């Protein structure tokens, strides 16, 4: 096997364009997951049992099926229901929904760690349920779990190559395009692996530093 450094250098702009799409999908999907996860986590502690049952079973289902098949289901199934999204929106939706189940569990861990006395105190002070969540519980529950959320951000970033299978022109798609044009495999795939490594390692260093700053175990 040979590695043509010149070729690797030449295809870099093409790959970086793919990387931009990857990053867009990751960030949009993560914002979706942070919001969706919150809804599910609130559902865990809802007063009505159907809400609790629905959020519990949704999380179980999402966590026990592969993201790839969930993406196929959304991409090929939604149009049959008359819902037509672009591939990118479907991809962001798929990533977001899948990770909201994991994020919900992270929030739950944070919420469970808030002492029960905080709930009692809020009730004693006649806070409404919504006020208790926004003013008392969440501000204590979320900061300690930020590093864990960071791990999931990196995890999501590494799952984005799956988006290539539903025609989204992200980093892996760009590499596949190069292999299609040049019949060279080692350069594009090595470059993609290096780009992923650089991005996820630097992000993980950032979150490790943050973890030390937030100061939880």
């Amino acid at each position, binding site marked *: 096997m040979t590695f043509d450094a010149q070729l690797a250098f030449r295809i870099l702009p093409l790959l970086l364009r793919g990387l931009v799409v990857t990053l867009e999908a990751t960030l949009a999907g993560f914002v979706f997951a942070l919001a969706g996860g919150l809804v599910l986590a609130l559902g865990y502690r809802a007063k009505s049992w159907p809400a609790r049952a629905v959020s519990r079973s949704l999380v*179980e289902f999402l966590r026990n099926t592969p993201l790839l098949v*969930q993406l196929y289901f959304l991409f*090929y*199934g939604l149009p049959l229901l008359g819902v037509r999204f672009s591939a990118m929106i479907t991809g962001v939706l798929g990533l977001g929904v899948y990770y909201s189940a*994991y994020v919900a569990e992270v929030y739950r861990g944070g919420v469970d760690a808030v002492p029960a006395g905080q709930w009692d105190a809020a009730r004693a002070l006649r806070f409404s349920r919504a006020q208790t969540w926004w003013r008392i519980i969440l501000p204590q529950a979320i900061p300690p779990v930020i590093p864990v959320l960071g791990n999931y951000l990196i995890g*999501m970033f590494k799952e984005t190559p799956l988006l290539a299978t539903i025609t989204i022109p992200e980093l*892996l798609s760009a590499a596949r395009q190069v292999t299609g044009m040049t019949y060279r495999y080692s350069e594009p795939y090595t470059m993609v692996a290096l780009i992923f*490594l650089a991005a996820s390692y630097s992000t993980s260093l950032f979150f490790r530093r943050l973890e030390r700053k937030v100061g939880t175990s």
Partner: protein
Amino acid sequence: MTPAPALLSFLPVLLRGAAVTLEVTAASACVAFLLAILVGVARVSRAAALRTIAKVYIEILRGTSALIQLYYLFFILPLLGIETTPMEAAALGLGLTFSAYGAEIVRAGIQGVDPGQWDAARALGMPHSLAFRRVIAPQAFASMLAPFGNLLVELLKSTSLVSLITLTDLTFSGAQVITSTGQPGQTWGAVLLLYFLMCFPLAQAVRSLEKRFTVYRGPSGASNVRRLA
């Protein structure tokens, strides 16, 4: 819309795919487990060189994407003159990826054993390696079981990636069924359900195992949030 019976007649195809999925899971779990123990022990070794090698191994495999690693093995090994079947590439690829996560579990398990155990073993005159084998490793192993179980569920789900390197697993079979039924929505729904039926019991078993261990470790030892992505 095809009625459900039409899809039902394709169930054997999906079940055959599910069998391949379980096969790939078992094969890559073996590779991952063996490598995880080796690398995890090296990660806490007294030899600095071993520790560094293990750390680099873990960071590289965790820092790149599982699908990219599979592609790398599937397309690039043949260029090096190493011919692998898709099954071998899949077991090796997923095995390598998950061994990095497994090695971190091994490391955490070993470091989680009370340092007093090392001291006690030394006080009894045990050499380092004997203390490791007889005292530390058995205790560490118990605390690794549940995290390994969670990792196994993640591995089972990740085997859907092997459909992209032409292995006829459950996901691949789903795509095949669609070419004959033309029913993507229902077929992918059925495939999701089959994956759930494989993963959920496994996840539940891990949970009850976890509960049994956290009972005696107390609430501080709970490892509920750390499910690896």
